[in-house]
């Protein structure tokens, strides 16, 4: 793993836990950035950096649950893995209800921790890919004219060329030409691809 795979943002008030987990994770090849409290993490967070959050629940100042709320408020969608030394069932439940990615009890088995963190990082990557793909598709769709968009919608709905021609009052030949233009603009090579692109668009 390298930095492009994403960083684990480790938030824990206990210096021993922070230091040891950072050491262990970096030895396992996971890039880790420790924070002593949730406030300093939020202050330095850059949305374009991929990664996931690994946070303690009970901390002086902002608690793990409050951090989740703060992230949601700022529309930060990085997965949050919650750690607690207390085994407090009710709080854990609250964390999961708040959308936590997973919940781990201290002291943790390092294999399980690594598993969970790798999953969280993968989810974050996939989410980011989906977002960027959607953005690219949107950009390409922008290039279509009004008429082409109309035809794309009909094609995506599964209509034959003859139907489309009849509905729009144009010849089948013209529909063919429009379709070729649309494929070119959207950089698609087949009809199936065209329909998929249309679906990923917002």
């Amino acid at each position, binding site marked *: 793993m390298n930095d492009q795979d994403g960083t684990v943002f480790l938030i824990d008030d206990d210096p*021993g836990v922070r230091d*040891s987990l950072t050491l262990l994770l970096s*030895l396992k090849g996971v890039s880790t950035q420790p924070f002593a409290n949730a406030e300093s993490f939020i202050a330095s967070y850059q949305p374009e950096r991929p990664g996931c959050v690994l946070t303690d629940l009970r901390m002086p100042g902002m608690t793990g649950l409050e951090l989740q709320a703060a992230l949601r408020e700022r529309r930060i969608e990085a997965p949050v893995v919650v750690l607690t*030394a207390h085994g407090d*069932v009710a709080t854990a439940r609250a964390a999961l209800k708040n959308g936590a990615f997973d919940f781990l009890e201290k002291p943790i088995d*390092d294999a399980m921790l690594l598993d969970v963190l790798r999953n969280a990082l993968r989810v974050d990557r996939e989410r980011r890919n989906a977002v960027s793909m959607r953005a690219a598709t949107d950009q390409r769709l922008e290039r279509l004219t009004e008429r082409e968009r109309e035809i794309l919608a009909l094609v995506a709905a599964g209509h034959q060329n003859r139907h489309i021609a009849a509905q729009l009052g144009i010849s089948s030949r013209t529909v063919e030409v429009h379709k070729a233009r649309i494929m070119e603009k959207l950089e698609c090579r087949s009809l199936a691809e065209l329909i998929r692109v249309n679906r990923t668009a917002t």
Partner: protein
Amino acid sequence: MNTTTESGVRPLAGVFVPRAWLIAAGYLALYLLLDWASYVEPLPHTSITPWNPNTGVVVALLLARGAGWAPLVAVSIFVGELLTDNGAPPWRVLALTSTYLAMVYACAAWTLRRRGGEQPITTPGGAAWFAGIIAAASGIAAAGYVAILVSAGQVAAEETRAAIAHYWIGEFSGIIALTPVLLLKINPAALWEEMPRHRREFLMQAAGAVVGVGLTFALAAARDVRLFYPLFAPVTWVALRHGVPGAMISVSLVQAALVAALELTPGSIPLFDVQFPMLALGVTALFLGALATQRDSALRQMRDQDTVLQRSLRFAVAGQLASALTHELNQPMTALISYVRASQLMSEGRPDTDERLSGTLRKAAEEALRAADVLRRLREFYRGEGARIAATDALAVCARVADSLQDRMRRSAVEFNLQYSASLPQVMVDSTQLEIVVHNLLTNSLEAFDTQRGARSSPRRIEITTARHGADVLIGIDDSGPGIAAVVTERLFEPFVTSKTSGMGLGLSLSRTFLRHQGGDLWSEPGRLGGARFVIRVPTQLTTQTNL
């Protein structure tokens, strides 16, 4: 016949169930003995006497064993009359009266048994039923009995009223004194153990009885029956201290002593004249005894409950300590395990390190994990697992706790109010734990009042309100005390935080822990009475979150 009487109730026999013929023989012997002994002052030419303890045996048998024993009763009455009678009415008349009396008392016993009359009397309600039915039954028995004798020409018509009065009072006072005694379930071993602790009291009560009886003898000779009333004092004392058993045993003894005194003292007043005060004494003692019995059993129940509560509380404190301990130790344990794992990774693949290093590090990691596991199990042992969740009436729990704190509230001059709400659903919690929580909160309020010395201008009030809230029930506990100190407010529910000079500061923390493990919660709010307000939330349905 009721089968429970065969197996469950052994009023005549103590602790073992005797065979039917044994009961019958014992009954006949006791009946005839008492019938013979109580044959005093009969009305002229009749066997009507003003004292019939033998009928007490009749009713006891019918109550304990059921109305099916009525034929034996009829036989015993017949034989009794035949043996002791000197007026000797024809046997046909005797057969008729015996059958009639047996039927009347069988009906009375059947009525009482429908209300659990075969059990010893333990409440004033039970005493009232018993006294009422027996008064009516003995009246009916007396009227019918005398009517038969009059129509058979055995009793002169002008003596009818006197005969009925004599017979009724004899039956009624005989039953009321003796039947409750015969229905008692006395455990001789327990009584023997009890004895030394109350020796002085027993001695004094016995002395009181001896003085009373001596007085009775002296007064019988002096023909002044008004002074019979001193006997009320020792009987009342015994009734209040020992409930129905003591009361009715002493009434029976006093009755016997009185009869003996009057009969053995030549020229004393007629027994009939003292039978009314005797009856009054019997009924009074029965009701006082029933009240005392009821009070004693309520007290015992409360004490038992308190013991359960104390044990639960100690367990909970230990649990809270375990929880705090695991929390504190889990942080360094986590760091330790991670460091060891990191060391393992660093030592791997390095040719220059001692080959024993990797094995040592692996063992170190295993030991650390083992320690962590011990902590986890310790915590799980104390966490929630002990809770027994069942449908519980939250209002009843509150009322029970308030009852147990009644004395303290009175001492602190606190006005307590529990607001009932009619349609409150049952809640799914461990009732003992809910009790601990309510107990804790009420005690906190009371202690807050007690710290508030000097200025007592405002009235001291504690109020419990309940409300339904979706699938939950909210229980609010308000007081008009000084409220919660600002320094404490923020950390109110953390363990070991307290504003009190005594106490560990675990109450609120473990109360919240209890409730949360059962899907409920506890928090504080601005109070409506100017002091503190705590709100307990408990679910009305089972939640699965206890094992997340």
